[in-house]
């Protein structure tokens, strides 16, 4: 079998490995056709070497090196500027683009949330009742903002509720006439140097139970931040409890591992151990849907199944989503989030 021209050329140039080289040599010795090709290749190589060699020798290019250097210096300066621009574009432009995109998403998200709240509010006839707070005690202002503690306290007094919520002396929360839903014990707060604070608009989806709530009716107020002075910024390790309860199911902790359902935590770092270890295990028949208590003015953003549900930033306040509202929401979501609430 004869060899291809490329192999013969490689053989001629000494570019074949030894076993192959020997085989080609042996074959060429007795093959007239391959021998002829090899000869032709040799001739071509000699012709090229001679012609190109002669040509190369005549190239007497003697460029003016000083002019060339000046040109080079110009080019280098231009390139330096281009590199700088490229660097800036590469880092800052991308950063700015990401920031702009996030800002846009945030704006769209808040707008959608407002719309969602506007739709949800009228369809929740039992507002407050599941939380042990009567309708008159659960206040939203018309603009959809949660009122601060003092205002709500006034609202509460005006509403003269039955005070369904009772608090035990140890600080756990009980639902009036129902199975107690223990609250995790206070977690000692770590005094961090700085807390990332984002000016979040409070959500009207939540109910706020102000400090001192119900005291005049014999209901002790749950206060979680005794270990943390309000002015001390704390990390989210000071979050005392974050758990999700669905009527008829045991409450369970919502932690950073559940981002599929509780999608976004600001300043993630929920102390799952402390929160979970203190979880109530019994059912909470009429418990809050989602309950978050912050020990300090740490902000937290919680979203469920892609929608922002909670934006809280006030300390010493239990933020709760009404169970009926949450149930409705989960139902609308096709039970996707609800299924995850089972332990």
């Amino acid at each position, binding site marked *: 079998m004869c060899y*291809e*021209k*490329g*192999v*013969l*050329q*490689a053989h001629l*140039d000494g*570019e074949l490995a030894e076993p192959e080289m020997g085989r080609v040599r042996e074959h060429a010795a007795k093959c007239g056709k391959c021998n002829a090709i090899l000869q032709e*290749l040799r001739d*071509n*190589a000699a*012709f*090229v*070497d001679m*012609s*190109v*060699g*002669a*040509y*190369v020798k*005549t*190239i*007497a*290019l*003697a*460029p003016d*090196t000083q002019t*060339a*250097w000046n*040109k*080079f210096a110009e*080019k*280098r300066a231009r*390139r330096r500027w281009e*590199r700088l621009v490229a660097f800036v574009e590469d880092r800052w432009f991308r950063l700015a683009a990401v920031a702009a995109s996030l800002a846009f998403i945030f704006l769209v998200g808040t707008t959608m949330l407002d719309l969602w709240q506007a739709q949800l509010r009228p369809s929740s006839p039992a507002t407050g009742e599941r939380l042990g707070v009567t309708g008159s005690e659960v206040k939203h202002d018309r603009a959809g903002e949660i009122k601060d503690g003092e205002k709500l306290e006034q609202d509460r007094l005006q509403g003269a509720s039955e005070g369904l919520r009772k608090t035990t002396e140890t600080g756990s929360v009980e639902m009036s006439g129902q199975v107690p839903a223990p609250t995790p014990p206070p977690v000692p707060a770590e005094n961090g140097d700085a807390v990332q604070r984002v000016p979040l608009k409070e959500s009207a989806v939540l109910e706020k139970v102000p400090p001192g709530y119900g005291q005049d009716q014999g209901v002790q107020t749950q206060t979680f931040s005794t270990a943390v002075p309000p002015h001390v910024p704390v990390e989210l390790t000071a979050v005392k409890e974050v758990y999700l309860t669905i009527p008829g199911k045991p409450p369970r902790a919502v932690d950073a591992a559940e981002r599929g359902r509780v999608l976004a935590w600001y300043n993630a770092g929920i102390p799952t151990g402390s929160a979970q270890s203190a979880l109530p295990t019994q059912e909470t028949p009429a418990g809050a849907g989602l309950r978050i208590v912050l020990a300090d003015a740490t902000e937290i953003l919680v979203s469920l199944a892609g929608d922002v549900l909670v934006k809280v930033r006030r300390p010493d306040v239990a933020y709760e989503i009404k169970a009926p509202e949450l149930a409705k929401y989960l139902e609308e979501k096709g039970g996707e989030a609800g299924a995850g609430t089972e332990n």
Partner: protein
Amino acid sequence: MISRSVEGDREAAFRAVFDQNYAELCRRLTPFLGDHAAVEDIVQEAFIRLYYRPPSRMDNLPAWLFRVAVNLAYNRLRSEERRRRREHGAYEQPEEAWEEEVLRREEIAGVRKALARMAPRDRFCLLLRFRGYAYAEIAAVLQVDPGSVGTILARAREKFRKEYGSTVVES
């Protein structure tokens, strides 16, 4: 002050390297490109590369510069070739790029013309081999499989001979 002095020393050292290598690099690259302006442009680009991304070893700077320049030249020619193919549908060597004033003898003109008429891949393969490049090095520049270099080289030499013959007939 110290940094300025260091910067000044660096600039002087670089200038020395530039002066030592520039002309020779242009001369070596000329057969590949033919056009003096293109040659100088590529060589300047190679020095820019040396300035911003010098090799880790500086023991054979001329060889490094030549390799960088050849790579730059080949990539540029390939992209030009692609553009021309898009525009004209076939490879066409721009004859005007070859300056006639450098042609001193008829046979030299024949060599230049023959090289100019070859596709960049064939021309670079032929000239790199002429420069003593191994097949693996040629394959790296041409971005082809090393096993195909023999075939490309054989055809390139054949093509060169044919083109040279036709230029002699034309003249």
